[in-house]
């Protein structure tokens, strides 16, 4: 018996909302980064679910390929994001985003 597609989608949506909430509400930059990661992963779940339910019958791999690209990008993003946060911390001794408003002059 197969798990129906909607279940996957509900899980993914929930995960996305958690990630979005985290990204919007956390004041710690690392927390925001983690929220973003959650949102990316929820997308991965969607991709794979659609692959399983639509593409297997056709014999193509587009969903999987996209998921792998997203994981790669997420890894890169995490690396760059963390590096930036560390750099910001070194300069300002804080990772609180409320204090980081240099874009506004």
């Amino acid at each position, binding site marked *: 018996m197969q798990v129906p597609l909607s279940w996957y989608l509900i899980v993914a949506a929930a995960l996305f909302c958690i990630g*979005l909430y985290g*990204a*919007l509400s956390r004041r710690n930059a690392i927390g*925001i980064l983690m929220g973003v990661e959650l949102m990316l992963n929820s997308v991965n779940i969607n991709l794979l679910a659609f692959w399983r339910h639509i593409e297997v019958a056709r014999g193509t791999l587009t969903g999987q390929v996209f998921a792998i690209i997203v994981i790669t990008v997420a890894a890169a993003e995490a690396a760059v994001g963390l590096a930036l946060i560390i750099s910001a911390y070194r300069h300002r001794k804080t990772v609180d*985003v*409320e204090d*980081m*408003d*240099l*874009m*506004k*002059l």
Partner: protein
Amino acid sequence: MTEFFFNLTWLIPLFPLASFAIIVLWTNRNRLLSTWIAWIGIGLAWILGWAILFLAWGHSSELTPPTHGYPVPLYSIPTGTTELQLGFQVDTLTGLMLFMVPFVCLMIFIYSKGYMNYGRENVDPRYSRFFAYISLFACGMLGLVISDNFVTLLIFWEVMGLCSYLLIGFWFDKSYSDPKRITPKQAGLKAFLTTRIGDVIMLAGMLLLYSQVKTLTFREIFSEETLHHLATTYAFPGMPWATLCAILIFGGAVGKSAQFPLHVWLPDAMEGPTPVSALIHAATMVSAGVYLVARSFPLFVAVEGGVQLAVVAFIGAFTALFSSTIAVAQNDIKRVLAYSTVSQLGYMIAALGIGAYVAAVFHLITHAFFKALLFLGSGSVIHGVEHGHHETHHGSHGHEFDANDMMNMGGLLQRMPVTGWTFIIGALALTGIFPWAGFWSKDEILADAWNAFQHGGHFGVSSGWAFFVWLFLTLAAFLTAFYTGRQIFLTFAGTPRTEAARHAPESVPSMTWPLIILAGFATFLGLFGTPWANQFYQLIGQKAEVLGEHLPHGEFNPLVAGISTVVALSGWFIAWLIYGREPLTNPVDPLEKRLGRLYIWLKNKWYFDELYMNYIVHPSVRLAQACFAFDDKLVIDPLVDAFGRFGRWLSEWLKDAVDIPIVDGIVNGVGSVTAKFGEFMRATQTGKVQNYLLVAAVTVLLLLVLFVVRA
């Protein structure tokens, strides 16, 4: 053989032209060489000219003007679909002119060597240039007489005009202490401009003629059909083309032959060297005007009894009398001759005006010889007196001595016998004393006029007109004898009135020989035109076929000959009474006392110079100044500048009134509105990433809602 020579006609003017070019370009520094080149040039022209004359004489029946000439074409100029043919020709009239012109020119050329003081310390600094100019001059006259059309004629005509300008103004650096006395440079200008007025009138006539008949070649214009066409088509009502063109062309002759009212230049032209006066005022240039009328005579008689002949006759007769009155009161030996020339030219013109074509040409030829003789003789006298002056006043230049003034002469016959006797021969010829040349030619004119009066004139000339001409010319003959006698007695008779005259030497042989030769011609030339064997009539008179009737033959009329002889002798006699019986000792003219104010009037030449100066020259100059002021200061240029200034003012105004407040205002307004809006929008920029993200999320959510609702 004949044709061979005729085909060389074009060489005649080319010889002196070549002399001119060679002297100007290369031999200017070598005086002797220049003299010889000029002599050779005119000499060759003379030989060829006489060769052609004698050949033409032999064929005179085939070469009668106006339609029977031997054409020597040169080249043609395209004029639309047609062509203008230029060229030379040989006919008997040309032949006659070729008899006179190169020979007289040669005499004058030879004379010039001595006159311009070759080989002495006071040789003229522009000696070679003089010979170049007179060579060019000879080229002009020779080319003129062999032209077979009006254009070539006009070209040579103007070449002569140029040369007369250059030669009259030859001593252009001369100035006189008397500011009223005309200087050579002014005289040259006056001559050129005065004749130019005539030339322009003539040009207009020529061009109108050309428009009507589409050709300028004499042979074609003077054919019967063409003349008939010209006489029967009208420029204005009552004015056939032939009449109009003839009168206009006559304008050129009036200018060149110094007829009233364009006579003023000729006496002043005496400022030039004397050989020039002989060249211009006797042999060549002034007779060109008469030649022109003689050449286009068929045109003048194309309309029977037309006004053109009356104009010609009146101007000629009036000029003859009028200028001889002036000659009576002149003291300058050359000026007397100049007025005499004007007067004699008046004779010829008047003769043409009553149809006495042959007589006019005859007088033209004889006059050229004896007037050249008189001018050269007067030059010799002046030259002698100048030398005498130099001898007696070594180096003293304080007082201006006028060697031309007859009052400074007297008793020169002893000092200069050759000059004196040849001068007297010339004077006898001029006054028409039997048997000298002037008697025959002048008598023929008077006889023709008398015959026209008695029997009615040819070509519709009225007898009253003819009488008027005869009367005027006879009166002029009296005055001619009087002023010539006066000149002789003042110059040669009595005792010298100045030291200069007392020491005047006889001239050098190169000056006296031409005088002797010319005196020979002045004596014997008339025999070719006696009423019993008139060679001139043989040569040029037979133009009946075109002119429709026989020309006046010049019958001998003892009555006329008697009257004119009596008149001339009485002129001489009165001159002797006043000047010869008691030779003058002091330089006051006895005539002055007797004539009173009339004398002053005559001495001032009827005040024509003043008249022209005040009413033509000065107004022209003032008009010129007014035009320039109009152009530069008052209207045209100020308008252009005003336009420019208006443009600048307009741009200033646009800048202040339109550009800055409105155009620039709009641009600036757009800028400031944008800036205000930016200020407002600036508030939304918190700089916090989470805010932006929230906005993005909400937007996506809203879009989602929209999507769902729409679906």
